[in-house]
């Protein structure tokens, strides 16, 4: 019976803060075997990161730890600093979340890699350099011999994460702790990094403690799962059990809240088609939840779709004709979007999908008038916005509402909520004090927040609540078009689910058209009628959601789809093989 390589025994951590003692972890126990991947899943405040940092003794000064952490049988918490130092990087190493800041910007990559080897007397000087180059090659950095002399800012996020992984495996650790290693990365890059980790794990027989909030990643990587809530473990078990037949209500909720990217032939698609043609009978599917966890309200998000065909005289809510967009920097203009063409009919939701650098957010900015259009026409309700004189442009802006990504920055911290929601009315000189307040109450109702919130300030609200206020503000003037730029990307999974639910309901109720920018294909699958995929400023593919997401023609779209992980281990394993095949075919 092999010994666990990492073992937590009743760990309790509390922090001394200005508000008193905060118990972050309240009694956590689990093991990690060699060669095993244990995923610790939870939302913000669950204590998962704190738990993982304990294993390396990397907690801040104001933390008190009780319990035991055993690394290959040795107690980490009772070791001397020197012993602990010897372990770090050689027996146990860590990969953190933010690749952009994990490397020292003023030192060359070669210096930083060589350091990792020298610290543990694995190699010195020239030998260390050779080993480092080999490590870089192993983690998939092409042209390693030249590139190793460069500085971190000359690498992309995904590459920097690879370098961090290289440093982590440099001395052949027994266990690697990966704290949200792919959360900040694009989905295709994420898939590659996860592949890399899996390969390395098999090669070196390391245990991996994977912290994540993404069930798809769990399905892709994990052997066992530990679910945490508020500092405690609520459920553990093999991945198939946890993801397939979760017992604890919290685990179930967590799974239910995750939006799904469905494949062709998925049963829920059938019921949707029924719902759409029926146009009236939306009530039925709302109460059912399938075993794979399709959340409520999702399947009836499409009810408004049928309208588009009948009322064809009304101009499209949003239309782009040969649009090109540029960024000007010091008199030099870089074209970031080329030849963009699309149409969004009234009442339709179009998902604008792409990875970083695709230009999708730029398009949203242009529609909102935040960025000039270099070429082409951008028609809102038939009128070409960029060409309009100022007064008319302002009048047209009444028809457009916006919800941004960052809840912390979307609301002016000095405005009370009531003022925030009614600002569009003030700007367009509509109504008087009473009617504005009445409207504000109406909208707060619609977004399911108590009206006492009117006098509160943004800092008193959580992220999800703030996003709901953003939505309320966007709807104040009953716009025909709503631009949503990654509205839920910064939120926890369950909060995201609630906000998306709400969004879908409101869209049905108010009937606005929507340009929904997202990098998350599953969210787009749940909400949008049509999809446009962008890459490096160009349109790759567009069509109805079904067409693009389930019968994609372009290889880039197929790669994107293949890379998105789904929370079912068997399905995910199959997808993984298919993806490898796809990539091999393209190469």
């Amino acid at each position, binding site marked *: 019976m092999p010994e666990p390589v990492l073992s937590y025994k009743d760990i309790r951590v509390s922090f001394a803060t200005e508000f008193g003692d905060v118990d972050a972890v309240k009694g956590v126990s689990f093991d990690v075997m060699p060669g095993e991947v244990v995923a610790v899943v939870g939302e913000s405040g669950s204590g998962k990161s704190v738990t993982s940092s304990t294993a390396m003794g990397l907690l801040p000064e104001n933390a008190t730890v009780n319990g035991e952490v055993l690394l290959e049988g040795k107690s980490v918490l009772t070791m001397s600093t020197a012993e602990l130092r*010897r372990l770090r990087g050689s027996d146990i*190493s860590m990969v953190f979340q933010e690749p952009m800041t994990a490397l*020292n910007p*003023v030192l060359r990559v070669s210096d930083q890699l060589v*350091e990792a080897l020298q610290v543990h007397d694995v190699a010195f000087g020239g030998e260390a350099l050779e080993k480092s180059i080999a490590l870089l090659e192993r983690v998939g950095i092409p042209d390693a011999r030249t590139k190793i002399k460069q*500085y971190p800012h000359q690498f992309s996020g995904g590459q920097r994460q690879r370098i961090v992984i290289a440093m982590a495996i440099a001395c052949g650790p027994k266990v690697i702790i990966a704290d949200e290693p792919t959360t900040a990365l694009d989905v295709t890059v994420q898939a590659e990094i996860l592949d890399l980790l899996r390969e390395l794990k098999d090669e070196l027989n390391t245990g991996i403690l994977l912290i994540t909030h993404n069930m798809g990643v769990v399905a892709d990587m994990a052997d066992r799962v530990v679910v945490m809530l508020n500092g405690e473990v609520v459920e553990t078990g093999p991945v198939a059990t946890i993801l397939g037949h979760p017992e604890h209500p919290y685990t179930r909720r967590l799974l239910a809240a995750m939006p799904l990217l469905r494949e062709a032939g998925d049963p829920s698609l059938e019921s949707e088609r029924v719902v759409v043609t029926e146009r009236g009978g939306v009530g039925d599917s709302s109460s059912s939840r399938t075993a794979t966890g399709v959340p409520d309200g999702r399947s009836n998000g499409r009810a408004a779709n049928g309208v588009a065909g009948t009322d064809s005289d009304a101009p499209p809510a949003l239309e782009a004709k040969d649009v090109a967009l540029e960024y000007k920097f010091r008199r030099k203009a870089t074209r970031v979007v080329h030849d963009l063409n699309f149409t969004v009919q009234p009442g339709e939701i179009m998902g604008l999908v792409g990875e970083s650098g695709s230009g999708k957010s730029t398009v949203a900015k242009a529609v909102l008038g935040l960025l000039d259009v270099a070429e082409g026409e951008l028609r809102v309700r038939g009128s070409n916005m960029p060409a309009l004189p100022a007064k008319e442009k302002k009048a047209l802006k009444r028809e457009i509402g916006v919800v941004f990504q960052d809840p912390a920055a979307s609301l002016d911290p000095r405005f009370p909520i009531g003022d925030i929601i009614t600002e569009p009315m003030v700007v367009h000189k509509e109504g008087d004090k009473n009617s504005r307040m009445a409207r504000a109450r109406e909208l707060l109702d619609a977004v399911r927040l108590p009206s006492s919130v009117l006098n509160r300030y943004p800092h008193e609200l959580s992220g999800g609540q703030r996003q709901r206020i953003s939505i309320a503000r966007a709807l104040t003037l009953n716009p025909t078009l709503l631009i949503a730029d990654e509205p839920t990307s910064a939120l926890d999974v369950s909060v995201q689910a609630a906000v998306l639910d709400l969004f879908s309901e409101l869209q049905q109720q108010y009937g606005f058209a929507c340009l929904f920018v997202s990098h998350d294909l599953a969210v787009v699958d749940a909400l949008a009628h049509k999809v446009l995929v962008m890459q490096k400023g160009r349109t790759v593919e567009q069509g109805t959601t079904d067409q693009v997401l389930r019968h994609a023609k372009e290889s880039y779209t197929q790669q994107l789809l293949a890379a998105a992980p789904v929370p079912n281990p068997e399905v995910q394993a199959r997808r993984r093989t298919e993806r490898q095949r796809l990539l091999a075919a393209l190469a």
Partner: protein
Amino acid sequence: MTRYIIRRLLQFIPVILISTLIVYALVFAIPGDPIRALAGDRPMSDAVRETLREQYNLDDPFLIQYFKYIWGIVTALDFGSTFNGRPVTDIIEQRLPVTATLALVTLVIQTIMGIIAGILAALYRDRFFDRFVQVSTVTMVALPTLVIGFLLQLIFGLNLGWFPIAGVNNGISSYILPALTMAAVSTGILARLVRSELLDALKSDYVRTATAKGMKQTRVITRHGLRNSLIPAVTFIGADLASMLGGSIIVETIFNLPGLGQQVFASIQGQEGTVVVGIVTLFVLFFVVINLIVDLLYGLLDPRIRYE
């Protein structure tokens, strides 16, 4: 990187021109008879008046005057002369060494003391040394240079007799008290800057990575923490050096050092417009050049700019 350099250079040329113009204008464009302005209350013979008119091209339009003046500086380092006919360049030559020495000694003192104090304060955070640094910097920043100067003269000069309180007759030790006075505020600010930058660096992700690699704390601090936090310190020191000439005015006056600063003050009082313009123009040029060097240095030290 080259683009960065060129951009900085180009930005500074108009700045130099306009600021020297302003300095020139301040003194000479005062309404009324410019000769009268130059001469102040001194009685003047017609011959002198004529010579001055010629010398300062006062029959030319103002801007032409200015350009001829600048041209004189650029080509022949001719800063004009005093009313007694003594070339300003002479005065500058004579007094520059004093001010330069003062600036150098101040620079050395403030750099060494400031950086070391800052590092120690960060490392021994919240312990005695840190507290001492904190308290003294707050107090020093709040005190006028005057008061600091007088206090130092009183305590170390008169009461303890360790250093001379005036004049330059005792070699380097004459510069100690004045340099300490000049350095007082800057040392405090530098120490706080280094402390704060170092503490920030120690909290950063890349330091966490280094610790996670198993490096000794001292190595983490020197190799990762210091290197990054000294960059802003270097720029501060450079910028401070640039403004040191201007700051020398008061210190040289208090300690009676025969440098450029004291000269400027005396000339303003004695209404020697030419000398004032000459020396202040020199200050301006020096300021701009040093700042340019600092900018370039920053570009060199931070690879993100070097390999843009």
